[in-house]
């Protein structure tokens, strides 16, 4: 019975209910949409990193720090036995990193030179192209961003200069054999990829590597000497940090939106109790307990959340669906800022996100509906019937 009365009352207050429901549904929409974007960014960074760089995880030389090029010089050693076994079984591959300078079109450009096993299939990189050019002194694979920056195309040759393990200068001609399109800027900008065996002989670092990447679904091995194991979460920690740094801003916006919706509902409740004093008195006189009357008013307020949910599905559902399918084109290329963000960001609306958002908004709406309704418990039915109820 309470539910029927609540519905009747709610639909009776047409404009007020519409406004409350609309504001709440906008809150619903924006919280889901923005959280979905963050989840999409996280998922994208994670997927791209797994697909192109990390696969199951990595083992790093203890001195290596991917964010600090100063460590590259000394971060190489013979691969520990247990990890080497994985490589021999083709469950892993090694990468040897060194600083170098290239001279495309006669101008100097510092790069990170990475030797990689050409026949690896563990990460999504066209490294096999490095194995098809035995006639070239140093076959080089680069990304399209690097090609654009250095004004290079397939077939172009340039001098590569490096310091070997003995810190002696050496130089030879590298030739671009392929330009890859990759969404992972970490493989692209400022990097040149050459065959691992070539890198090892160029740098006089036979059988050495800087890090080893292993295939998905493999257990991490324990006996890795002083090398360090890093999982996927570690590898996307920078992206997580950027999102975490950005989240407080979004949370302020959620709070403002939710506060607007809550204030609308709170205001409507206070007004209802003030204006509907006689109705409250009549209900009490007819035998309805105070707690049931409070429940009725709280339910009326709470139904706003339900209606807002329905309106969100009807009004904003298609918008969410559209962006979920087609993504949101971003105005700039964030890869040049060192962020792994898709050029077309696809928000991800997870089940847990929708449920948690619904619960959060419902709780807020119920609380702001209940707080003014508590006044009813202090009302005298006689005063209420006379319309003298003080709120």
């Amino acid at each position, binding site marked *: 019975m309470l539910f029927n009365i609540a519905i009747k009352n709610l639909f009776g207050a047409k404009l007020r209910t519409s406004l409350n429901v609309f504001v709440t549904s906008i809150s619903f929409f924006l919280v889901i949409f923005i959280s979905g974007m963050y989840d999409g960014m996280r998922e994208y960074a994670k997927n791209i990193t797994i697909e192109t760089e990390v696969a199951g995880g990595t083992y790093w030389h203890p001195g290596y720090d991917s964010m600090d*090029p100063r460590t590259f010089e000394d971060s190489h050693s013979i691969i520990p036995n247990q990890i080497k076994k994985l490589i021999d079984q083709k469950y892993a591959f090694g990468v040897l990193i060194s*600083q170098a300078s290239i001279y495309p079109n006669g101008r100097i450009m510092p790069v990170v030179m990475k030797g990689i096993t050409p026949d690896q299939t563990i990460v999504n990189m066209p490294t096999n192209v490095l194995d098809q050019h035995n006639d070239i002194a140093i076959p080089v694979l680069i990304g399209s961003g690097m090609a654009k920056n250095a004004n290079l195309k397939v077939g172009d040759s340039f001098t590569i200069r490096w310091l*070997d393990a003995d810190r002696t200068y050496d130089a*030879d001609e590298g030739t671009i054999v392929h330009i890859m399109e990759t969404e992972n800027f970490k493989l692209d900008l400022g990097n040149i990829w050459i065959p691992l065996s070539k890198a090892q002989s160029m740098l006089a670092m036979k059988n050495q590597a800087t890090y080893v990447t292993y295939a998905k679904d493999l257990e991490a091995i324990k006996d890795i000497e002083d090398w360090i194991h890093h999982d996927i979460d570690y590898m996307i920690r920078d992206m997580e940090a950027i999102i975490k740094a950005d989240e407080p801003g979004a949370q302020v916006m959620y709070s403002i939106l939710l506060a607007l919706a809550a204030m609308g509902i709170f205001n409507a409740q206070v007004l209802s109790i003030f204006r509907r004093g006689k109705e409250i008195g009549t209900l009490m006189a007819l035998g309805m307990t105070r707690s049931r009357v409070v429940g009725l008013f709280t339910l009326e307020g709470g139904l706003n959340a339900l209606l807002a949910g329905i309106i969100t599905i009807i009004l904003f559902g298609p918008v969410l669906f559209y962006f979920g399918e087609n993504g949101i084109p971003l105005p700039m290329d964030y890869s040049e800022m060192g962020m792994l963000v898709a050029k077309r960001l696809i928000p991800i609306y997870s089940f847990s996100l929708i449920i948690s958002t619904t619960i959060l908004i419902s709780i807020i709406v119920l609380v702001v509906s209940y707080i003014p309704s508590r006044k009813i418990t202090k009302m005298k039915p006689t005063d209420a019937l006379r319309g003298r109820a003080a709120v």
Partner: protein
Amino acid sequence: MKNGLILFFLSSSFLFTQSDQMSADDIMKAMDQNLNAESRIITSKMVVKGRRNNRTIESKNWVVGTELAFTEYLSPPREAGTKMLKIGEKLYTYSPQTDRVIQISGHMLRQSVMGSDMSYNDMMEDRPIEELYSATIEGSTMLDGRDHWIMVLDAKVKGISYPKRRSWVDKEYLLPKKEELYAKSGKLLKTASLEGIKKIEGRWFPSKFVYKDELKRNSKGTEWIIDNIQFNKKIPDSRFSKALLRK
């Protein structure tokens, strides 16, 4: 400190009368004797030639043996106050803009000094040539009307930047007029030449060095012009303290 790379070019004149009888080792030894002056105080200009304009950087250097060197940049205003200190294998720089002392190490040693064609590595390498290379005389040739030996130097120790050099050594001055620096693969990396040789404190000494990174197609080279040089002057130990970088 800049003398690091140029050490090779420096030689004395007192040996030139015997130069025709000199072996490659003798020539290197003579060079080292000149290079390893007890101390040097140099005021110089580095002219970095760019595509559009040239940059001139003035500096003063204090050098003791091959282990200690201190450089203070005097101009232009942007570089003035920048200091470098070399103690053995370590190189420290101080920049007044950041008010920080940084140790240059690893890959940073390969970067160019003030945008010139010289790297920090080039500056650091100033051990006696005789210790680093074994030399052979390839022949003789006339260069600018003067008689020169063509010498090939191959590294005999590990860990030096240029494993091979070819030098055109003036038979009278015992100074290389021209030098080519090669990579391990034999690729020519840099060239250097010296001009304006004159007698200073009893030794022949060039007043201008020209370095060129041969891999940079558009490079016009870097000139190092010696305005003033004093040999074997007493330099206090405090000149080579890290504390002096900030002063």
